[in-house]
């Protein structure tokens, strides 16, 4: 039995449309579909955030995220998975990263989703620059 249709991962400079991304998860074998969106919040380290900028080393980031998603599909027997990460300037409330995982049962979909986002945050060559309300900035640290 073929366990998954296709993988999808990408570093993108355009806004992430969560609804459009979810439309592809239409495999009739799917019993659970989990999505996680990392959003830009207005407070960080007790300071007011004006906006964020994300920078990525795109060719390597795409390769690494692809490998992470492929590993998750294999390890958690997923039917399908997707991971998108933004670059460029993001306003408060925008989606910085989206991870969608689909499987026959919820346990695998949840676990795989967390596995993907944790590894992408810690390993993929992507960097966050937080601009504060006073115009200064701080390079982000992985948390």
């Amino acid at each position: 039995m073929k366990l998954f249709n296709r993988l999808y991962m990408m570093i993108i400079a355009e806004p992430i449309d969560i609804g459009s991304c979810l439309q592809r998860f239409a495999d009739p074998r799917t019993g659970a579909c989990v999505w996680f969106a990392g959003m830009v919040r207005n407070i960080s380290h007790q300071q007011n955030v004006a906006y964020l900028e994300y920078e990525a080393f795109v060719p390597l980031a795409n390769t690494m995220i692809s490998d992470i998603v492929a590993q998750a599909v294999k390890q958690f027997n997923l039917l399908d998975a997707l991971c998108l990460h933004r670059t460029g300037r993001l306003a408060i409330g925008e989606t910085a990263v989206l991870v969608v995982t689909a499987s026959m049962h919820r346990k695998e979909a949840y676990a795989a989703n967390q596995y993907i986002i944790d590894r992408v945050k810690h390993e993929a060559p992507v960097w966050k620059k937080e601009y504060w309300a006073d115009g200064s900035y701080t390079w982000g640290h992985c948390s």
Partner: protein
Amino acid sequence: MTDMKTQLLHIAVFAQLKDCLPERFSKEIPENISCAGLLEMLMAEYPDAAPVLKLSRIASEQEIFNNGHLLSGVDKVFVLPPSSGG
């Protein structure tokens, strides 16, 4: 006295390293220098960036090298500070 063979290496840096180093530059390095050796050279040359360079990784467009990887014959590397995506 021995002649130390050198090679020209093109270097690109990212994120906070751009605050202390040129974003793209070229440097003569000893042949057979390791990634750890290159980072040490950069730390000596750019002490303000040393705390970040100490945690950085050297990569090609395809892979991240381990610290002992030798750069002989490599003409371009990327210096990656710790990730902070998500």
